[in-house]
């Protein structure tokens, strides 16, 4: 079979597999989505401290989307940039080894510790208060080391010969990194960023420490608004004695799953496109 014919054949197989995966993901998402919508409709928009029937998820949902956005916008460029510098540019000195091991260890620090750091640094130190911005910054700081670690692994798995071949064609270091190395590593980088981002979105501990509200009367519309998020809202409801709240907490966790699946789907699609470019 000639190369173009092989290309077409492989393409067909890939298309079928993709359609199959799409259907499976679609069914799961639709089921979760329906549950979440029912919950959001059932529960009122203005939650009350003691009345479960009028407690809703709109503000927590908006808070989580804000946090996801802030975390992604800060942690991904910083983390991937740091990984590119460490793997592709920085000379392997003793300082490099020190920095690399510090970053590796930071990726293993429990989220609670980041919460305390965020409380001291952003909420008190920078005077941001228990706001969406303080929460986003805290989650971003927690996410950066994980992004660095996974991106470094992705870059290190690109064979050295790819860099040599690209340099050998008269490309500059930056052209090699931008056009070939990052492109080859893109699927793994996006995969690592997705995992790190989803873990940040699901984290409750650091947000509870910096002071997430368990009761809000309006949905956050800007990063300066009070901090609220799905995981912390879930936690707050489980702590209430009144009947009805346990059901709400269960509903909130389903909604959290749905939102995470949705974000995961968006990132999966991104990865699929990049993965295609690689092959």
């Amino acid at each position, binding site marked *: 079979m000639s*190369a173009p014919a092989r290309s077409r054949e492989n393409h067909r197989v890939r298309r079928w597999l993709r359609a199959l995966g799409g259907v499976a993901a679609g069914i799961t998402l639709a089921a979760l989505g329906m549950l979440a919508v029912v919950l959001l409709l059932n529960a009122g928009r203005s939650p009350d401290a003691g009345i479960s029937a009028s407690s809703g998820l709109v503000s927590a949902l908006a808070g989580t989307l804000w946090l996801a956005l802030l975390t992604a916008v800060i942690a991904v460029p910083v983390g991937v940039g740091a990984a590119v510098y460490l793997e592709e540019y920085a000379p392997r000195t003793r300082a490099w080894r020190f920095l690399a091991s510090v970053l590796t260890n930071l990726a293993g620090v429990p989220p609670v510790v980041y919460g305390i750091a965020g409380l001291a640094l952003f909420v008190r130190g920078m005077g941001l208060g228990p706001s969406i911005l303080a929460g986003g910054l805290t989650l971003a700081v927690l996410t950066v080391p994980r992004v660095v670690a996974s991106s470094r692994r992705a870059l290190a798995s690109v064979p050295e010969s790819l860099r040599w071949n*690209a340099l050998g064609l008269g490309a500059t270091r930056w052209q090699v990194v931008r056009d070939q190395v990052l492109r080859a590593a893109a699927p793994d980088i996006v995969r690592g960023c997705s995992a790190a981002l989803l873990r940040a979105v699901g984290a409750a501990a650091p947000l509870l420490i910096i002071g997430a509200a368990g009761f809000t009367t309006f949905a956050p519309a800007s990063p300066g608004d009070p901090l609220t998020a799905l995981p912390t809202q879930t936690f707050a409801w489980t702590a209430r004695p009144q009947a009805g709240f346990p059901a709400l907490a269960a509903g909130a966790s389903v909604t959290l799953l749905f939102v995470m699946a949705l974000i995961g789907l968006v990132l999966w699609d991104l990865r699929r496109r990049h993965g295609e470019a690689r092959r």
Partner: protein
Amino acid sequence: MSARDEGTRTAGDGAVPVLSAEGLTVRFGEKTALSDVSIEIPRGSTVSIIGPAGSGKTTLLRSFNRMNEVIPGSSQAGTIRFAGGDLHSAAMDPAEVRRRIGMVFEDAALFPGSVFDNLAFGLQARGEEGDLHGIAEVALQAVGLWSEDAEILEARASDLSAEERRRMCIARTLALEPDVLLVDEPTSTLDPAAAARVESLIHALRDDYTIVFATCDHTQAGRLSDLTAYLDSGRLLEYGPTQTLFTNPRNPRTEFYLTGRLQ
């Protein structure tokens, strides 16, 4: 008569070598890969570098287009001259050097994407704004990968066979119209029939390019090259016309190597 004199003498128009190394020593950390190598590559000639594994063949090729300096811990002494100028002078841009002295690596990694993407990369890196498809077509024709429907350009590089990959990697280098072509193990990892076809491609390119290639198949050196250099543990033990070196080697180790008695 020294080996170098002999090399220069046999070189067609060869008064001016296009590439020459003088007292070239290359180290990687503590390990010496090449020691005190002096060699001249006459313009228009085809030179083979033979020798046992680890003798420095690849290192010598890579020093001709400044590819050793990208390896951390490498150091170099001696001079290399290219077209009359010092290859390492401040005026020489390493990227420019690598375009003019093109190299086909033994481990010829494919770039992500299509065959066209592979050919276009070097051209785009150079800032080429002309007809990339036209240049790619000419380069693919030169290596026998072109077909009239131009479908090959859109094929994924990873769908190519081993032989087609090797041809594409040669085309990638030719697209930049280098003065000198360095080829590391042109036919390694190919089956004998494909190896023979790629070898005849290299043979056809001899008319248009100065070619330096490294091979561990010394019969291939015999078939393809005008001049042969024998490297042994980083030293250039013998360099001269291929026929002379094969039939009447002056160094006993060359003879041992060629006859398979080198222990």
